[in-house]
């Protein structure tokens, strides 16, 4: 075939990652559910009763007159508590995902790119991975008291090594690419090579990983609350609500059912988005980036 002077006419720029992702149906529907839950978390408290409001006359009432989801043993409105609990879950999930990705990305880039740092960082990560999140949370809380920050820290620490491993494996393959070697040969400074040529390749797998981290963080937070080792019990998080409803479970299942269902739907939505992203980003990137 004869070489022609101009390249084949094709779409000028590549579609952005988000455009590619939103074409996937599970990303769209999962994302829609998440957006609704986020809106409820952000603005729901303006429309519901005070979740701390005690009503001795209306204790352990089933869903109906005393509230959409019934009331708990202190007569507090379960619907209002579940709506307010969404804020805690989403905050923890997002915070853990963002913090562990940022730290993990940095450590992973360093470990993957600089051979002499690799062994050091990865052995520390192996160590961190062996710490169970729940045990760490209990230890941290007994040391410094139960706050949102301690809970997030406790969940972030064991999550970081997973991100580091992922980033490192991507970096290890990308750093051998001829275009990276060409950049070295062109005298590009190391940090610029990492920023310009290596980092962009980690974005797609990291977005996918972030969703899984987010989902599991929300579950872990609920478990901690349920065990009484999480957010202070007076704050309505889904884990706390279920924990308090535990003793009355056989009599008044609604106290546990509704926060449990909310948690299940949220984590499911996050995971559906994650699966959709994995499907749409991985093969698509392999094809369009060629």
């Amino acid at each position, binding site marked *: *075939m*004869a*070489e022609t*002077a*101009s*390249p*084949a006419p*094709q779409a*000028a*720029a*590549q579609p952005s990652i988000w455009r590619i992702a939103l074409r996937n149906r599970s990303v769209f529907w999962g994302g829609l559910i998440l957006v609704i839950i986020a809106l409820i978390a952000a603005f729901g408290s303006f429309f519901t009763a005070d979740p701390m409001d005690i009503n001795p006359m209306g204790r352990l009432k089933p869903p109906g007159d005393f509230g959409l989801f019934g009331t708990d043993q202190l007569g507090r409105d379960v619907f209002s508590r579940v709506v307010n609990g969404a804020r805690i879950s989403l905050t923890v999930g997002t915070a853990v995902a963002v913090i562990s990705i940022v730290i993990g990305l940095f450590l992973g880039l360093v470990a993957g790119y600089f051979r002499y740092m690799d062994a050091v960082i990865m052995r520390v990560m192996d160590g961190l991975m062996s710490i169970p999140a729940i045990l760490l949370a209990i230890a941290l809380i007994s040391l410094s008291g139960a706050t949102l920050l301690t809970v997030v820290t406790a969940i972030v620490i064991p999550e970081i090594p997973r991100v580091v491993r992922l980033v490192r494996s991507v970096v290890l393959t990308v750093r051998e*690419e*001829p*275009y990276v*070697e*060409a*950049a*070295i*040969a*062109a*005298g*590009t*400074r*190391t940090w610029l090579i990492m920023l*310009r*040529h290596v980092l*962009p390749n980690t974005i797609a797998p990291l977005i996918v990983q972030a969703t899984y981290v987010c989902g599991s963080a929300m579950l872990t937070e609920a478990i901690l609350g349920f065990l009484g080792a999480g957010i202070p019990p007076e704050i309505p998080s889904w884990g706390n609500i279920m924990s308090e409803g535990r003793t009355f479970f056989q009599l008044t299942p609604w106290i546990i059912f509704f926060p449990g269902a909310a948690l299940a739907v949220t984590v499911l939505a996050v995971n559906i988005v994650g699966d959709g992203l994995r499907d749409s980003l991985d093969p698509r990137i392999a094809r*369009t*980036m*060629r």
Partner: protein
Amino acid sequence: MSPILDIRGLTVSLPKQADRPYAIKDITFSVNAGEIVCVVGESGSGKSVTSFTVMGLHDKRALTPVAGEILLQGENILNASDAKIRRMRGEKMAMIFQEPMTALNPVAPVGDQIGEMLEIHTNLSASKRKAKVLQAMRDVHLPDPEKMYHSYPHQLSGGQRQRIVIAMSLVLEPVLLIADEPTTALDVTTQAQILSLIKELQERRGMGVLFITHDFGVVADIADRVVVMQNGEIVEQGPVDQVLGAPEHPYTKMLIAAVPSMTPPEREEVTGETALSATRLNKQYGHKGLFGGGRVVDAANDVNFIVRRGETLGIVGESGSGKSTVARCVMRLIDPTSGEVLIGDTDIATLREDKLRPHRRDIQIVFQDPYRSLNPRRTVGQSITEGPVNFGVSQAEALDRAKRLMSIVGLAPEALDRFPHQFSGGQRQRICIARALAMEPMVLIADEAVSALDVSVQAQVLDLLEDVRDEFDLAMLFITHDLRVAAQICDRIMVMRKGVVVENGPTAEVFSNPQHEYTKALLAAAPGHGTFDKESA
């Protein structure tokens, strides 16, 4: 006598979004018993689609045969049921692939893999099966079949693996063998052995062979008849002597003319100043363990050379010869274990990265794989200007330079804001050359820079490399496994084997009067030796 394989008017359609409506269009040719038919063409010509459709292995979601028939001993494969085709595969027709490593299961002994064919298609007892497998392994001249029966694919060499694949495909004695680029992944000396094996087996069994290749040298060595394909259509077919000796279609003529001749042109000795020299260069991989264990491999052992401005030094060798290691040491993409690398009069072999960086601009490289040499997320302009900007050239000036270079390498300057995936392989290689030139280097290293390209594109890129060498007075280090290419472009040649330079001299001398046994073997093994030399001599 009716042919074994008769393809009549075969048309296979592509999905709607493809760049052309048909993968192959109205193909008609046949393969007789005792005959090797070569289907030859460049990438995208439809030659592999043809072979895969015959085997019923084509991607059924994308490719649909819409017209014509494929008759195997008179039976139309396109109408046959899946069960029937499954039985035909192996018993009547068999296929060998390009990459023997991936064609074999890495976790099963090779003997069992050959035996599996018999297990599925025959009722032989286990002991009879084993005897037959051993016989098949002897037929393809594998040493010590009893022992090799229990070997795993990774324990064998590339050539041995391909022999296993051939044994596997022939154990049921099919009447048709389809070979899809079976020697492309192999070294040239191994390639020659496999080709003669295929020819020998074909003669002994009288089967028909459909041989897919892009290499006219291979065609000259093995074919009885040739089918030339371009863009999914047959442009010419006929007996090998006729097609190669007196091609009629302009495309065939162009392809044959593009095959580089093994006879080097007359060249004057270059006497420019020395731009690059390596002295006692060593690179060892691995290291002795703490207690004396471990294994050390000499990837490059005591390599010495100089390259003058305006001169091309070729480093020729097979895989594992250390030729790329030398290039990467010289580029300081890896650190040499010992030795000197002088660029101008600076020894860069042991400089620290920050001291080395100013010297990086003097020596640039073009890699083999055009698809991985450019960052897919950055525009061509960004890729070309990256280096100059690193060295303090202003963005505007770098862009000006990039535009000039784009026209020098034969591309439109407006294409600078496009992305690499919008270019063909040959065009990308031109971009890589432009990127290297943008640094205004003294030395250009071409590491198998034309090996991944189709032969017609290869010729153009070779011309371009030669042009820019003269225009910018570059010293060029040209690394290749292909003796034909080396003959055309190199002033001097260095032959490497297992990390050691075995021969070194002016190209014409090395080709006409090789001293070392290995060089002689390499020259003899070059495909098409004879056919294409007579023409050019």
